[in-house]
């Protein structure tokens, strides 16, 4: 233990790490978290598959005559229904994470501070991809055959992850202003689920009364589902592209600055 009295003499680091490098370090930190808790990661990814099976077998016959026929319509929506709620976990994790002592240390260190939030949110893409792969795999097993082929599938998957990233800023913001992670999870019931179900995720809007159609069509989730479906089946039009991508960008443009402002304020409260 005497060794402790003689401290290491070390060259200081050559230079401050750049913004990208620091963000990458925080992404790595999140990936280590996933790696150190591998069971949780697997359960979270497989969970949405159960939802797909329930809806496919419960509604399949009634809605489209067969499971296989309904899956053609259902899968793009279920993909969003599976991946978008994962952003709530991002917000809740952020909330409990930044309340930890280690964030006190981060705040006394000389690096670009927004990276501490940005890296965490960015790394969640891994969770979104895992959930997406699980649902997509199960969908193919149930007979999902998108008309857009491999290219359409890749584009639809990419868009789903993009949209989830955009929505994740809503919960990142709530995670920053909420005192407890439970508040973040609770807020999703109020914000996310009405939007998810009052949309064209599960049903075609053509059967709804006109006023409800107007509401459902104005829902950003409906825009996202319409584009995802269009991409899978290779028939997405310019209007769907603009609405689907635009809806995501507007959400991110509002909530990303709010999140960063809340994080920086929280630092010196």
């Amino acid at each position, binding site marked *: 233990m005497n060794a402790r*009295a003689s401290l*290491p003499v070390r060259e200081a680091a050559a230079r401050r790490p750049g913004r990208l490098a620091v963000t990458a370090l925080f992404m790595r930190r999140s990936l280590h978290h996933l790696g150190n808790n591998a069971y949780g990661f697997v359960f979270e990814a497989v969970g949405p598959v159960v939802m797909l099976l329930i809806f496919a077998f419960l509604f399949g016959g009634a809605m489209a005559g067969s499971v296989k026929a309904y899956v053609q319509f259902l899968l793009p929506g279920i993909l969003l229904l599976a991946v978008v709620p994962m952003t709530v976990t991002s917000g809740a994790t952020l909330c409990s994470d930044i309340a930890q002592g280690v964030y006190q240390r981060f705040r006394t*260190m000389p690096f670009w501070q927004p990276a501490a939030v940005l890296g965490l949110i960015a790394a969640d893409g891994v969770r979104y991809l895992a959930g997406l792969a699980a649902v997509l795999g199960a969908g193919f097993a149930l007979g999902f055959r998108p008309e857009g082929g491999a290219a359409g599938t890749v584009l639809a998957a990419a868009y789903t992850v993009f949209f989830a990233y955009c929505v994740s800023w809503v919960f990142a913001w709530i995670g920053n202003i909420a005192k407890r992670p439970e508040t973040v999870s609770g807020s999703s019931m109020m914000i996310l689920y009405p939007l998810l179900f009052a949309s064209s995720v599960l049903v075609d809007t053509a059967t709804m009364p006109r006023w409800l159609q107007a509401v459902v069509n104005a829902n950003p989730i409906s825009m996202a589902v319409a584009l995802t479906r269009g991409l899978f089946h290779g028939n997405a039009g310019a209007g769907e592209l603009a609405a689907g991508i635009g809806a995501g960008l507007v959400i991110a443009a509002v909530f990303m600055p709010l999140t960063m402002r809340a994080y920086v304020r929280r630092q010196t409260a």
Partner: protein
Amino acid sequence: MAYAIETGGLRKSFGGQEAVRGVDLAVRSGELFALLGPNGAGKTTTIRMLTTLLKPDGGTARVCGHDVVKEAGAVRARISVTGQYAALDDALTGRQNLALFAGLYGYSRGEARKIADELLILFGLSEAGGRTVGTYSGGMRRRLDLAAGLLPRPEVMFLDEPTTGLDPQSRHDLWDTVRGLKRQGTTVLLTTQDLEEADQLADRIGFIAGGRLIAVGTPAELKARYGGKTLTIRLAEGTDADGVSRLLDERFGLECRREEEGRIVKASVRNAETAHAAVGALLGDGTVVEDFALDDPRLEDVYFALNAAGAKEAAV
């Protein structure tokens, strides 16, 4: 003389409650300065402002010549903090924690890994390095926290109650490390409630109470100013302790305490002359004194004297 830490009229309130009420602090470069005071005195709030974690409501604070608010980045590049609540990532292993911090300080991935391993060995944590920190004992966490604090080779190190809750061996190890830091020329600001710790380590002590710095000096200065020596007299069996107490009170103005059923009489004295005169008077009076001793003032005496003064001031 260059000051590593300099504050003027530093203030901070929380919801109308003034935690720090105008602190003027000047810590010299290379000095080991201890902020001593009871719970809630404003020690931690002061540290949090100096380490850029809290914005002051009023006054100024400079660390290494840089303003903690306007030049927070420059301050952060020169300091390091080790807190009473070990600031570590519980979900990462010990090695992952250190490698992350090293990376954030700008070391390459390879260097960061090497540094992490070095520090784990130095702090006796190599075997635990692969376990998540959530499974560590309190002492292990504190060691890892200190290792992380030493990573950036700071000019100024802030240690916020670093030994609270440590066992005696870990406490002494930590003291050794802090002395090593000082030998390397690092300025150290330490907060503590542990009088022995302040006495052992500090070049100077600032006593903080009720959000104000009410006394500053070397341990010896403070003891001379606020604490007295203790005279202990052991009497032969059957001696009239009341009479002895009365004599010491009447002739020397000493307030006596009795222990061991009157066999021992203790009193605070200003200096050695008074003690000699008191014992001489007793012997001249025919009292049988079996033994006597004169003890140096303890920081504890200073602590209680100043605490009483602080409480009086707070009540005004």
